Each structure stands twice: as C-alpha cells, then as structure tokens.
C-alpha cells in the first residue's frame, strides 16, 4: 500500500515537470509585458529595465523556468505583481472559499445522483426511469451561469429572500455565511447531478443484467440487499473515476459561478490574474490546480479497490 502510493507519487513527478513547463511556456506566450503593466503611466526605459530585472524577465527563458521551478520546490510561489501579496498565501485563502462552495455541492450531488441513478436503472424504461433521464438531460443542458442568473433573479431579486452575491465566511457569521452559499451551491449542483446520475444509471443497468444478480435472487436474497450489496458496489466502481474527474474540475473550474456571485474564490482569482497578466499568480495557481487535480485522482485510485477487488494495489 505505502509502496504503491510512493510509486504513484514518483510517477507524478515527470507529469508535473511536463505540466509546469507547459504552463510556463503558455504564460510566456501571452503577448504583453508585465513590467510595462506594473509601471503603468510612469513608463521610462530605466524604470522598465529595473522592473524587468526585479521580475527576472531579463534572463533567458529556460533560465527563468529553472529559477521559477527552484523557487516553487522551496515553497516560494513568488509575489503577485499587482498586489504584492505572496501567491501561495493568496491562493490558499481563495481556495478555502472555493472549497466552501464546491464541497457542499459535491456531497449534495452524490447524495442525490447515486440513489436516482440506481432507481432509474432498477425501473429501467418505466416512468421513474424516464423522468430521471429527462430531468438529468435537462440539468445537463442548463449552463451553470444561466442557472445562477435564474436563481439570482428568482430568490434574490423577485422574492428577495437570499443575497444576490458576495461572500461572508461562515466562521465569522454562520447563518449569514450559509445564506450567501445557498445560491452558488445550488447553481453548481445541477450539472453535477446530471453527469453523475447518467453515469450511475448506465453502469447499474449493465450490472443488473449480470448473472450474479439473477443468482443472488435465486438464493432468495431480498431486493434491497440485491440493490445495495450486489448492484451498488459494482455499478459504483466505474462511476468513481468520473467522480474524481468532476471533483478535480470543480475545484478549479468554478470561475464562472464565482464571477456571477462575486465570490473571492480560486477560479475568479485566476481569471482576474489572466486579465492583469499577473504572471506569478497565473503560473502558481495553474500549477496549484493541477496538483489538486492529480491528488484527487490519486485518491480515487486508492479508493477503487474497495469497490472492485479485482483491481489490486501493487
């Protein structure tokens, strides 16, 4: 087990190197000079040269990459060109906000999607199945930002029961914090439910046709037990990979929702940085996002054998 984790971690190193080079290359290809942007109106050649030196932009490209990598490894993600705050600290602060939206949405979608998918598969082609499929397809077709606007209009503006945006930490004011989270979480949850439900339904339909299900029934096992002991683990295993992918992309891909609701989360942070050509922030946060994505997938790999013992950790 430990050995497996270590091997996996070791294997992540080349991918991380590749991704970091890719990120670095991409960011440096963005037209526009961050030094010029930093100086704004006080543009003169000596100040520019000084700024470039300070930012390390006067060095050769590969050298800049090596310096950046060296700093990253020692935990120094640099400082934001715009605000001057350390990138890593800013990242963690923003990431906490994103977590508070993503984790509830993720848990909720699992709680809804797994039973819904199972029920749809169990009543395959009956009305329960048809309505679940219709609902899921509908959810899949509503863009999250459109859902967000609808929610804001209905609950925030028409009825005025919930705030239309902004963020209050639940640690500071619990009830107010929760009130601010309800709409963003709801906007996110529908698409996730759609994807997961469809996935769970498809694999459960397949499992229900297997001989071992008939065999379990032939032994006189109750339908509940068939569903939860025989169908669920086998149908859940293939969904697990998808769940990992969803969580990975959720943790980084909520830029649109955060923009609509004015949440100071990670996605919004990156988008702002892209607009501001804040190299250290873009580089650092993209790398951060990739590490999180890879970490979530490693976790999925470790969990997989629990549901499918045929896959061994070795």
């Amino acid at each position, binding site marked *: 087990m430990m050995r497996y984790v270590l091997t996996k971690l070791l294997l992540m190193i080349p*991918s991380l190197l590749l*991704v970091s080079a890719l990120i670095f290359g991409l960011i440096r290809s*963005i037209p526009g000079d961050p030094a010029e942007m930093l100086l704004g109106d006080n543009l003169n050649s000596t100040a520019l040269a000084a700024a470039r030196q300070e930012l390390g932009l006067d060095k050769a490209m590969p050298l800049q990459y090596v310096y950046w990598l060296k700093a990253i490894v020692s935990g120094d993600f640099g400082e934001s060109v715009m605000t001057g705050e350390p990138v890593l600290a800013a990242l963690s602060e923003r990431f906490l906000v994103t977590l508070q939206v993503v984790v509830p949405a993720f848990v909720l979608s699992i709680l809804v999607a797994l039973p819904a998918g199972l029920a749809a598969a169990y009543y395959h082609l009956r009305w329960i199945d048809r309505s679940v499929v219709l609902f899921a397809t509908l959810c899949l077709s509503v*863009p999250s930002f459109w859902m967000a*606007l609808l929610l804001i209009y209905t609950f925030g503006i028409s009825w005025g029961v919930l705030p239309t945006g902004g963020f209050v930490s639940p640690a500071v004011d619990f009830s107010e914090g929760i009130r601010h989270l309800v709409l963003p979480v709801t906007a996110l949850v529908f698409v996730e439910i759609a994807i997961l439900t469809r996935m769970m339904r498809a694999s459960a339909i397949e499992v229900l046709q297997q001989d071992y299900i008939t065999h379990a029934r032939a032994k006189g096992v109750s339908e509940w037990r068939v569903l939860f002991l025989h169908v669920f683990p086998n149908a859940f295993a293939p969904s697990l990979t998808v769940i990992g992918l969803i969580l990975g992309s959720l943790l980084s891909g909520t830029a649109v929702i955060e923009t609509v609701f004015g949440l100071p989360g990670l996605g919004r942070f990156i*988008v702002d940085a892209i607009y501001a050509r804040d190299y250290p922030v873009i580089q650092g946060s993209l790398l951060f996002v990739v590490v999180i994505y890879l970490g979530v997938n490693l976790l999925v790999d470790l969990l997989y054998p629990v549901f499918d013992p045929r896959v061994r950790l070795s």
Partner: protein
Amino acid sequence: MNNLMTNQTAVIKTAMPLWKNLWHIPSARFSIIFLTTVVLLAITSTFYLPYDPLALDIDARMQAPSGEHWLGTDFFGRDLFSRMLVGAGVSLRVSLFSVVFATLLGTLLGTVAGYRGGWTDRSLMVAVDAILAMPGILLALVLMMILGAGEVGVVLALGLAYSPTVARTVRGTVLSIREKEFIEAASVLGGSDRHIMWRHLVPNIVGPLTVLCSSLFAQALLSESALSFLGLGVPPPYPSWGGMLADGRQFISQAPWLCLIPGTAITLTLLAINLLGDALRDCLDPREGAQK
C-alpha cells in the same frame, strides 16, 4: 480506387438505417427539427434581418418585446431579435469549427498512439494527460490570451483544449478494435498496415466518434458561451449568445428579457444536442444492433 468504392457502399449501407432509426425516436426527431430550424434561421438571416444588429438607437433603449422589436432592445437600443439571429450563427459556427478542429487533431493523435503502441503511445498519452489535468475553461482562457479575442481565437483555443479528450477516446476505441479478430483476419489475408488502418480501423471508429462529437459540440457551445460571458470570447460589439447573456446580467431586474432570451436559447439548443447525442448512442450501440 475500386477498393474505396466498395468500402464506401458498405458504410452507406449501415448509415442508411441509422437515420431512419433516429427519426423514429421522438426526442431525436424534435432535436433534428429544432437544430435544423436554428441553423437555417442563422444562415438565411442576412436576407431578412429586421434591424442592423450593431446599430445603436438611443431612443429605443431597453424596450420590452413588442410588435416593432419582437424580442425587445438592449441597453444601447440594439434590436435583440436581430442580435439573436446573428449570435446564433456566431455561436454555432464557433462550436462547429472548434469540434471539427479538435476531432481532426485528436483522431490523428489517438489513431497513431493506439495503432503504434509502445513508446509513441506512452509519450503521447503522458502529454495528453498533462493537458487534461488543466481545467478546460482555464486552458482555453490562457490560450485566448495568446491567440487574441475573436472567432478564430475561440475556435483554436477550444479545439486545442478538447483535442486531448478526442485523442483519449479514439485511442481507447482503436485499442479495442485492434483486439477484434477481424483485424488479425485482414493481416492473415496479407493486408498491409495502411490497408488495415484505412479499411478496417477508421470505418469502425466513425460510430463512437460521432457520439463523442455530439457531446463535444454541446460542451463547445457551453464553453463558448462561458468564455463570452467572462468577456474573453467573441469581442463586443459582435453578438454571441453568451456575450448577450453577460451584457444583460447588469439589467436583470429592470429588463429580465435581456437575460431570459439568450439563456433560453442556449438551454434549448444544448438540450436538443444532448438528446440527439443520446439517441445517436442508442442507435449505434453494438449490443442494440446485435439484437435486431
């Protein structure tokens, strides 16, 4: 030459009942009719546009839908109906081209990786995984910064961001087809690698690829709207559905139709594409075929 001819007839033979089967599924029929209508409206709109979609009219700002302006006007007094029609063209064109681009690039990479195997496969897949580890919308955003805003930029950015997904699927399909005995049968008959690739591998990838493309098309439309929504898609004043939704956001309490109309259009189009994709997958499922 002769080889190609027979092959095509064989493919067409299976393709014919596919359309018939699709037409028999109500949801697919709705989707085909809806999408055809939208596409036709978008294409022919230049001939009967009631207003110039870019023309400002300060006197007619933020008018609710009426006989004069069927879908109302926006903050600058531009006619929403005209903008919706032109925007449909932009959104669909951008999505279509980015899917085509992603499919071409991804199929090439996936076929080579799946068929060659070994180190070619491994290094290509490491690269593909590396790109997949970055969230698509952020990757597209960065690419947009490099390529510059505009239709071409969006197409290239989305195409590049989606090609790894295509490459992965195509590689998986190639690997599973390679396991099939008919590939070995062809090599027993003396078929060269090229012969096997073009006459057996490629025709059998078409089915799964069609299904993938339909879901990618939906994703591309969604991402295009999201990019425009974030202000990095098709630059103003040119209309796109996502951009119009973003513009309307500020006036959601005074003029809700500015959001409602493009939002509903995006949702309905996505719904049609998703339903069509599901129907396509049902029709192309080999197990369904085996039962008939």
